């Protein structure tokens, strides 16, 4: 950042003065926290704090359950679980492509029994349960386990990531056509708006897309593009905006440009409120005040001198807390070379707790509100995000842009740009392209570098045996229902998914039948046959 600009290229002055706030109307642009347009926060008052959690998930479900209990015991207030790469791609662990990836980058989940083990003895009625797992399946798993434990679905809190636009381009390919991905999203949101009204079934995830190296303007512009498209699709079904809008949340990234990240969050709240009111006619105040969760940037971390990552996580967390987010998690300091160790999880949690309990920063809401600099930057970031949204929507239907690979190219360009900035030193990374030290000196916190998580090969036999033991006729029947109801546009796919899951069908089988219903191959890799269902 040798130029005098923010990371996204906004020119910075040496100093900001009252002159930079000319035209600022307090009631119209800021207002008090908890009041429209919610620039200063979605709730009135201070001291509410945030849900402190760490992203977790590793190995088989029972191992992840232990991990969750460890974190809760250490003070974690909510859970956030991510699936391993086969789970994220809707493939069962017995798929030949899954073998060496089972449980190494997240938890392996494919059937109801897995969710039972994952959530065993957890207080589902009182803790918020967030998921980065294919949405319809994550919801089905949570809903069914709660039901078995006599926990009313309307009590469930938490969120699930909806990523219909960009998952195929950003490392979470499910090998499904866009209309089917959108169907997953809209059906699961509609289902939750009725059955799980406290659950944030529409978590817009701009975190993982911005890890391609997007700047804050690009990150939020693409997030708004996706939200607007999904909202329009839900309205087109005849849903009232206020039935689902209160349960929209955004999971965003927080990188190292401290004030720009703060401005991004304040601008996002204001843009969201205006959009919901003016473009979509929302009336319920809860529909206007978006919940913001955040994950600190994994991309900003380095494998060199990993102790610097603790500092990075702390600075980013402070930015988020000063912005008034509702939940946050810190990318573990060892993330550059492994999935988080228990030690790095603890460092993340303790960082949050120190900021919460020792610094007093949460005692005043929006403490930076009114700053000449912060307000001016918030305005500029807001304008740039919205200009970008209009520019992209002006290019045509975003669904078509997605099909044509326009977004893929956008991400590729961002990745190249980021790599170039690191290489030529425009973006400084202490320990990586400046202030390096020889490898033999770089030993602090590097004990875990060579530790590996072995794939859970046991799962393959276990799942195969489970599949064989089922009542095959019943499985065939429920999978056929999945196929038929997915083919029929008027049906909500959540119901056949719930029925199939409850009966013992797996995610891989259900997803395969849904691909077939949309004219795609059952197995995207062409190596397994369709199960005892629709033999097409």
């Amino acid at each position: 950042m040798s130029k005098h600009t923010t990371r996204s290229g906004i020119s910075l002055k040496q100093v900001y003065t009252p002159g930079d706030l000319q035209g600022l109307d307090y009631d119209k642009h800021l207002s008090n926290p908890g009041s429209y347009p919610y620039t200063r926060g979605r709730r009135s008052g201070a001291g509410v704090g945030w849900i402190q959690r760490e992203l977790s998930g590793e190995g088989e479900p029972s191992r992840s359950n232990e991990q969750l209990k460890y974190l809760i015991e250490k003070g974690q207030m909510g859970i956030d679980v991510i699936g391993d790469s086969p789970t994220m791609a809707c493939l069962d662990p017995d798929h030949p492509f899954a073998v060496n990836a089972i449980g190494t980058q997240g938890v392996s989940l494919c059937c109801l029994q897995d969710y039972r083990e994952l959530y065993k003895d957890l207080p589902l009625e009182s803790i918020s349960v967030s998921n980065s797992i294919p949405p319809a399946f994550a919801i089905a798993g949570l809903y069914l386990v709660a039901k078995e434990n006599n926990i009313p679905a309307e009590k469930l809190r938490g969120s699930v990531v909806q990523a219909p636009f960009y998952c195929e381009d950003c490392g979470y390919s499910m090998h499904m056509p866009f209309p089917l991905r959108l169907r997953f999203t809209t059906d699961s949101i509609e289902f939750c708006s009725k059955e799980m009204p406290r659950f944030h079934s529409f978590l817009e995830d701009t975190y993982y897309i911005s890890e391609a190296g997007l700047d804050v303007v690009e990150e939020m512009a693409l997030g708004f593009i996706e939200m607007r498209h999904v909202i329009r699709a839900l309205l087109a079904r005849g849903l009232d905006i206020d039935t689902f809008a209160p349960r929209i949340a955004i999971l965003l990234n927080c990188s190292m440009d401290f004030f720009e990240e703060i401005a991004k969050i304040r601008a996002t709240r204001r843009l969201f409120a205006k959009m919901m009111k003016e473009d979509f006619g929302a009336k319920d105040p809860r529909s206007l005040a978006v919940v913001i969760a955040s994950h600190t940037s994994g991309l900003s971390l380095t494998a060199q001198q990993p102790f610097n990552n603790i500092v990075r996580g702390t600075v980013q967390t402070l930015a988020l807390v000063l912005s008034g987010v509702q939940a946050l998690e810190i990318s573990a300091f060892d993330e550059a070379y492994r999935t988080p160790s228990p030690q790095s999880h603890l460092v993340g949690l303790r960082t949050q707790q120190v900021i919460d309990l020792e610094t007093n920063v949460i005692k005043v809401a929006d403490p930076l509100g009114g700053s000449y600099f912060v307000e001016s930057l918030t305005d500029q970031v807001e304008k740039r995000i919205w200009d970008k949204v209009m520019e992209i929507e002006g290019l045509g239907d975003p669904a078509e842009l997605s099909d044509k690979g326009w977004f893929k190219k956008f991400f590729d360009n961002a990745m190249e740009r980021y790599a170039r900035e690191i290489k030529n030193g425009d973006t400084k990374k202490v320990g990586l392209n400046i202030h390096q030290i020889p490898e033999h000196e770089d030993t602090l916190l590097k004990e875990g570098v060579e530790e590996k998580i072995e794939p859970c090969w046991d799962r393959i036999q276990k799942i195969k045996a489970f599949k064989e033991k089922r009542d095959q006729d019943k499985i065939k029947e429920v999978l056929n229902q999945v196929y038929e109801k997915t083919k029929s546009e008027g049906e909500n796919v959540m119901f056949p998914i719930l029925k199939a899951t409850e009966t013992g069908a797996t995610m891989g089988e259900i997803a395969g039948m849904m691909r077939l219903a949309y004219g795609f191959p059952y197995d995207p890799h062409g190596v397994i046959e369709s199960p005892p269902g629709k033999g097409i």
Partner: protein
Amino acid sequence: MDKIRVLIGILGMDQHEVGAIAVSRMFRDAGMEVIYAGRFNLPAMILQMTLEEGADVIGLSCHSWEYLYYVPELLELLKEKKLSVPIVVGGSVITPGDADVLTGKGVAAVFGPSAEADEIIETVKRIAGKGIAG
């Protein structure tokens, strides 16, 4: 002299494609011919493509730990077919310890995240000559 033919692929469920694309471009710019196998390959598929395309070098981009198992499997398959096509491995997750293990098993060269373009190209040019099928 014929152009060096490099097969570039990613293994298993690893979905990180940026490195593979960047390296492919780099090799093409250096005058090599790239056969791009893309994502989602198992060792047997890489072997088959190597045979069909007559690749001189196999380049594997690794950003998940799956390569720890797939690369030795591919080495075994090449041995079974009595093919001496060299394997070059590069990626963000490769630690110094992994690099030692892989070269010990017969991988021709290993590049970590900080490898320079010139170094990679020179190495591939050097080892390509040694890879004689049959």
